[in-house]
C-alpha cells in the first residue's frame, strides 16, 4: 500500500478541479495502491489486447496474404498430362466455361544449397512470358523472363538456400544430369507452398534453358481458371473433366491427374486457407480464455478493494451515502481501471498483431503492408474492456455494499459468524492432532466465491495444459499409426522398366540389408455411382505378405494371397472421403483409362498423406500392363524389425550408392525418419503455441491464487495476530499459508484432471482438424497430467511466497489494533 500521505500527479489533478469529494476519494484510493492499479489495468490490457492482437492479425493476414495471393490470379484447377504444346491452352480457353488457361512445365529437380546439401527443386517454365497471367509471381530483383542458363529463384528458397542474384547454382535433373545456372533474379511467388514448410525450392527458367538441360520443350500442366464468381470444387473438377475429354484426350495427350491447388482448399483459395482459418480459430479461443481470466482477476481485485474498504463503506453509509451512491462510486472505480486498461490494450494489441502477422508472413511467405487500427476491432475491444469489467465487478460491488452498516463498521475483521455451512461442519469432523494443519484446510473453504474463482482459473489452466499434451500425444500417436505404412528402413524410387526381381536381388546383395521388397505404384480415380470421378488415388501393388507395412485394420481383413482375385483394401482416408465404401461392397476404379470393378475386403487406418488403395502386386501389374516391373524398392536391415536412426541412414546411403552404380535408379533414397521429420516440426510449433497458452493461463491463475491468499490474510489479520500471540513463529505462519495454497492447488489439480477429460478431446479434435483436415483417434496424455501436478505444486509454493511473507511481517500490535 502506498502511503496515504504521499503526493503525486493524480493527487494534484483531483485537488485542482474542485470536484465532488466522492470522486476525489475514488481517484486518490486508486493512486494509493499503485501495484494493485497496475495489476488490474494490466490484466484488462492483456485480455483486451489479446483480442486486438488476434483480430487485427487475422485481419492483416487476410488482407495482405489473400490480396497478394489474388493478385497472382490463382488457378482453380490443374490438369497434369503427357507433354503437350502450348496451343492446347488456347484450345482449352475456347471452352465456354473456361475463363483462362495457361500451360506450364514443372520439372522435379535438385539444387545444391550453399552448404552443399542437395534440396528438392521444382523448375517452372511458363509457356508465354509475355502473356503470363495465371498463378503469377512478382519480381523483387532482376528481370522476367530469365535468359538462357539463367534461373530466377523464389525469394524464400533463395534465402534458405543462401543464394543471391549473380550466384552460380548447381541444378541436377533425373539421371544425375548436372547443370550450372546463374541466378538472375529473385521472385515472390505466393502460389507455391514455401520452402520452409514443404522443403521444396522453386525456380523459374525459360524453355531454351530446359531444352539445353536435355528436356523436351513441351508442357505438362494446364492451369485453368473457371468462369464464374465463386467456383466450387465440383464445378472446377467438372470443367477440368470437360477439358480433358474435349481438348487433351482427343489431341492424344492422356491426363494423369486433375488436382485442385492447395491443401484441401476450395478452388481459387490460398493453399493453406483452411489451416489458417483453423489456426485463427485456436487463437480466438485463446483470446476468449484470456478475457475470461482477466475477468476473474478483476472480480478478485474488486473484492479485495471492497474488503479493504468495508469499514469506509460503512462510514459513508453512516454519514448519509445511499447504496446507489456507493455503487456508483465503485463502478466509477472500475470504469477508471477499464479505461486505462483499454488505452493500454490498444498499443498492446497493435504491437502484438504486428508481431503475429510478421511471424505468419515469414512462415507463409507474404508481406505485411501495414498495421492498421480498424474501427470494428476497436469497437470490440472497447466493448470488452468497458463491458466485461463492469459486468463482472457489479456482483462483488452489489454484494459488498449490501452488508449492513452495522456489520460494515463493527463486525468486519471479527471472526464470529452466525452461520456455519454444511461444508464447514463436515470439515470440522476431520480430526487431527495438528490444529495448524486443520486451520489451513478449513480456511481454504471459508470464502467459497473467492475460492471458486481461483479454482476456476487454475482448473482452466490445468485443463488447457493437459489438453495441449493430449493433443500432442494424439498427434504423435497418429504419426506412430502412420508409421505402420512406412515400415521400412529406407526406400528408393525406381524409373520405369526396372524388373522387380532384379531390383530385389540387387538390394539383397548389399551388406547390412536383410530384407527387400518391391512395390508397383499407379494412379487412378474412383468412379462413383453417378459416373463422376474422384480426385487422384494412389494405387499400390504389393506382396500380400508384405513386411514393410503393418496394416491396422479397422474393418474386414487384409489381402489374401489369391492373384487376380480383384480384392482391394482401402485406407480410411478414402473411406471417409467417398461415400458408399464398405467391406464387402464393390467399387469402380479407373486405372490407365480403363474402369475395373473391385471388392473391398478391408479398411485400414488413416494414412494422412492421402487416399490409397492396396491390391496384390500381380493384379496391379496385369491391369497396368507392366508385368514384373517395380516402381519402388523398400528395404529393412533385418526382417521383422525396424532399424534405428543410424541404421536407417546407413542402409539408405548404401542403397542409394548401389542402385546408382548399378544403373537402377539415380533417385535419392528416403529413410523412415526423414519421412516424418517435417510432420514433427509442424507439431512442435503447435505444441509450443498450445503450451504458451496454457502457460499464460497458469500465470494468471497463479496471480489469482496469490491475490486470494493475500486477501484472505488481510481479512484474517486478527487471527494471525492471535496465532502470533499464542506462540506461532515465522515458519509456523509460513507453513499455514503454504498449506492453504497447496490445498487449493491440489483441489484444482483434481478438478483440472476431471475437466481435461472433456477439454482434451475437444482441443485435440479442433487442432487436428485445423492442421491436418482430418479426424483422428484421441489419446489422453498421462504424462501431461503428471507434469501438471508438478507445475501446480510449484504454482502453489510460489503463489504463497508473497502472502506468507506478508503474514510473517505483520506486527502483533498492529494486527490487534487493526480496526
Amino acid at each position, binding site marked *: 500500500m502506498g502511503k496515504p500521505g504521499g503526493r503525486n500527479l493524480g493527487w494534484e489533478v483531483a485537488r485542482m478541479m474542485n470536484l465532488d469529494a466522492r470522486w476525489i*476519494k475514488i481517484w486518490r484510493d486508486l493512486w494509493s495502491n499503485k501495484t494493485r492499479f497496475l495489476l488490474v489495468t494490466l490484466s484488462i490490457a492483456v485480455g483486451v489486447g489479446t483480442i486486438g492482437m488476434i483480430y487485427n492479425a487475422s485481419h492483416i493476414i487476410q488482407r495482405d496474404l489473400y490480396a497478394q495471393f489474388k493478385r497472382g490470379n490463382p488457378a482453380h484447377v490443374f490438369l497434369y498430362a503427357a507433354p503437350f504444346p502450348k496451343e492446347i491452352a488456347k484450345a482449352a480457353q475456347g471452352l465456354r466455361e473456361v475463363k483462362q488457361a495457361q500451360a506450364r512445365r514443372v520439372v522435379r529437380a535438385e539444387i545444391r544449397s550453399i552448404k552443399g546439401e542437395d534440396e528438392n527443386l521444382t523448375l517452372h517454365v511458363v509457356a508465354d512470358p509475355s502473356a503470363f497471367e495465371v498463378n503469377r509471381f512478382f519480381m523483387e530483383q532482376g528481370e522476367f523472363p530469365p535468359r538462357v542458363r539463367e534461373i530466377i529463384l523464389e525469394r524464400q528458397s533463395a534465402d534458405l538456400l543462401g543464394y543471391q542474384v549473380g550466384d552460380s547454382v548447381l541444378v541436377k535433373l533425373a539421371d544425375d544430369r548436372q547443370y550450372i545456372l546463374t541466378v538472375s533474379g529473385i521472385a515472390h511467388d505466393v502460389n507455391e507452398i514455401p520452402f520452409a514448410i514443404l522443403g521444396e525450392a522453386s525456380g523459374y527458367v525459360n524453355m531454351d534453358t530446359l531444352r539445353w538441360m536435355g528436356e523436351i520443350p513441351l508442357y505438362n500442366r494446364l492451369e485453368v481458371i473457371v468462369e464464374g464468381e465463386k467456383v466450387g470444387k465440383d464445378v472446377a473438377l467438372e470443367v477440368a473433366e470437360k477439358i480433358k475429354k474435349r481438348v487433351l484426350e482427343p489431341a492424344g495427350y492422356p491426363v494423369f491427374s486433375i488436382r485442385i491447388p492447395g491443401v484441401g482448399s476450395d478452388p481459387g483459395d490460398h493453399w493453406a486457407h483452411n489451416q489458417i482459418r483453423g489456426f485463427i480459430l485456436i487463437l480466438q479461443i485463446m483470446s476468449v480464455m484470456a478475457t475470461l481470466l482477466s475477468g476473474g482477476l478483476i472480480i478478485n481485485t474488486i473484492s479485495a478493494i471492497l474488503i479493504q474498504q468495508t469499514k469506509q463503506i460503512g462510514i459513508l453509509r453512516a*454519514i448519509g451515502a445511499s*447504496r446507489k451512491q456507493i455503487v456508483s462510486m465503485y463502478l466509477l472505480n472500475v470504469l477508471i481501471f477499464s479505461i486505462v486498461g483499454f488505452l493500454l490494450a490498444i498499443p498492446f494489441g497493435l504491437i502484438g498483431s504486428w508481431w503475429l502477422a510478421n511471424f505468419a508472413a515469414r512462415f507463409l511467405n507474404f508481406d505485411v503492408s501495414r498495421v492498421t487500427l480498424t474501427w470494428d476491432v476497436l469497437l470490440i475491444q472497447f466493448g470488452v474492456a468497458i463491458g466485461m469489467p463492469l459486468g463482472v465487478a457489479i456482483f462483488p460491488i452489489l454484494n459488498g455494499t449490501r452488508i449492513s452498516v452495522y456489520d460494515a*463498521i463493527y463486525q468486519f475483521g471479527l471472526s464470529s459468524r*452466525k452461520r*456455519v455451512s454444511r461444508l464447514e461442519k463436515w470439515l470440522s469432523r476431520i480430526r487431527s492432532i495438528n490444529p495448524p494443519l486443520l486451520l489451513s484446510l478449513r480456511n481454504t473453504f471459508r470464502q467459497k466465491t473467492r475460492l471458486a474463482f481461483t479454482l476456476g482459473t487454475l482448473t482452466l489452466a490445468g485443463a488447457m495444459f493437459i489438453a495441449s499434451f493430449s493433443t500432442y500425444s494424439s498427434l504423435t500417436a497418429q504419426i506412430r499409426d502412420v508409421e505402420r505404412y512406412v515400415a521400412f528402413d529406407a526406400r528408393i524410387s525406381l524409373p520405369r522398366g526396372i524388373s522387380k526381381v532384379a531390383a530385389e536381388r540387387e538390394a539383397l546383395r548389399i551388406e547390412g540389408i536383410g530384407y527387400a521388397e518391391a512395390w508397383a505404384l499407379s494412379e487412378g480415380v474412383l468412379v462413383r455411382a453417378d459416373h463422376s470421378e474422384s480426385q487422384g488415388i494412389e494405387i499400390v501393388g504389393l506382396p500380400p505378405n508384405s513386411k514393410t507395412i503393418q496394416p491396422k485394420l479397422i474393418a474386414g481383413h487384409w489381402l489374401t494371397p489369391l492373384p487376380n482375385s480383384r480384392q482391394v483394401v482401402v485406407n480410411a482416408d478414402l473411406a471417409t472421403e467417398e461415400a458408399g465404401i464398405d467391406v464387402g461392397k464393390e467399387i469402380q476404379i479407373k486405372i490407365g483409362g480403363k474402369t475395373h470393378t473391385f471388392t473391398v475386403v478391408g479398411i485400414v487406418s488413416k494414412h494422412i498423406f492421402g487416399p490409397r488403395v492396396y491390391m496384390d502386386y500381380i493384379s496391379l501389374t496385369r491391369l497396368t500392363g507392366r508385368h514384373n516391373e517395380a516402381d519402388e524398392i523398400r528395404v529393412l536391415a533385418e526382417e521383422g524389425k525396424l532399424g534405428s536412426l543410424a541404421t536407417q541412414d546407413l542402409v539408405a546411403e548404401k542403397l542409394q550408392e548401389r542402385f546408382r552404380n548399378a544403373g537402377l535408379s539415380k533417385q535419392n533414397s528416403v529413410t523412415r525418419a526423414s519421412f516424418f521429420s517435417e510432420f514433427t516440426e509442424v507439431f512442435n510449433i503447435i505444441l509450443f503455441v498450445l503450451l504458451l497458452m496454457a502457460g499464460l493461463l497458469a500465470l494468471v491463475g497463479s496471480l489469482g491464487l496469490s491475490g486470494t491468499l493475500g486477501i484472505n490474510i488481510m481479512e484474517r489479520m486478527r487471527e494471525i495476530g492471535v496465532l502470533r500471540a499464542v506462540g506461532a513463529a515465522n515458519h509456523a505462519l509460513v507453513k499455514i499459508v503454504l498449506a492453504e495454497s497447496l490445498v487449493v492447488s491440489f483441489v484444482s489439480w483434481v478438478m483440472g484432471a476431471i475437466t481435461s477429460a472433456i477439454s482434451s478431446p475437444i482441443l485435440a479434435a479442433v487442432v487436428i482438424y485445423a492442421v491436418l483436415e482430418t479426424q483422428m483417434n484421441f489419446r489422453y496424455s498421462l504424462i501431461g497430467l503428471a507434469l501438471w501436478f508438478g507445475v501446480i505444486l510449484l504454482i502453489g509454493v510460489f503463489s504463497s511466497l508473497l502472502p506468507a511473507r506478508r503474514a510473517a511481517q505483520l506486527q502483533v500490535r498492529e494486527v490487534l489494533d487493526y480496526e
Partner: protein
Amino acid sequence: MTQLSVQEYQKQYSDRTLADIEEYSSVSPLIEARDLWKVYQTPSADVPALKGITLSIQPGEFVIVVGKSGAGKSTLVNLITAIDIPTRGSVLFRSQSIFDLPEDQRTRWRGKNLGIVFQFFQLFPTLTIWENVKISMDLLGEIPMSERKERALDLLRQVGLEQHARKVPAKISGGQQQRVAIARALANDPPLLIADEPTGNLDSRTSEEIMDLFASFVARGKSVLMVTHDRGALKWASRVVEILDGKLLG
C-alpha cells in the same frame, strides 16, 4: 479522583435542567427510543443486549449514557442512529418512526439529521481534512455546490483546525482527528450529534477539550447524545442516564 454517583449528578444539575424542561415541555422530543430490544442470535443461545430501553432527547439537551463495557451502550447508539435494526421497539425522530422508512430514505434521514462521531474517528485516509468534511455535503447534496468548500473551512475554523485543512488525517494527532470528525458530523447542519465513546482513544487533557467542544455546540442549540464509560465526562452533561446489562437504571 472523586466520583459522584449518578443520583448526585442528577441532583446537582436538576436546578438547571428544570427550567429547560419547562421551556421545552410544549415541544415534542427531538428523538425518542421506545421499548428498544436487541437480541443477538448465536447458534448456542439468544443473547439479549438491550432489554426494553425507552429514552427521549429534547432539543438542546446534552445527554450522556454511562455504563461499563458490555452494558449495551454501543448497541443503543447503533439502534438510535438506525445503523442496526432493533429486534423490537421503535425510534421516533420528530414523531416520525425511523424504521418504517425504506432503507434509502433512512440513510438520507441519517445524513441530514444526525452527526455521528465514532470512537476511532473514522476519517477517510486518502481525503484531506476539508475534503473529509465536504464529502458529507456532497453525498447529501442539500447545501449548494458553491458554498460547500467555504462551509467546510468555516466548520474547521469552529473546531480550531483551519490551518490543517489541506493535510491528510494521518498527519494530525488523534485529538485533532476527532475535531475533524466533529466538524464532519456538523457538515449538513444536523440538529442532533451522536457520539460513541468519542474520548475513548484520547488522553485526559485532549478528552476535556473534545468535551468542551461538544458543550459549545450544545450552547449553540445542538442536541448531543453521548455514550461513554468515562465518569469523568459526566460533568458536561445536562442529563445522565446509567445503563447496565441492557437496561436503564433509575
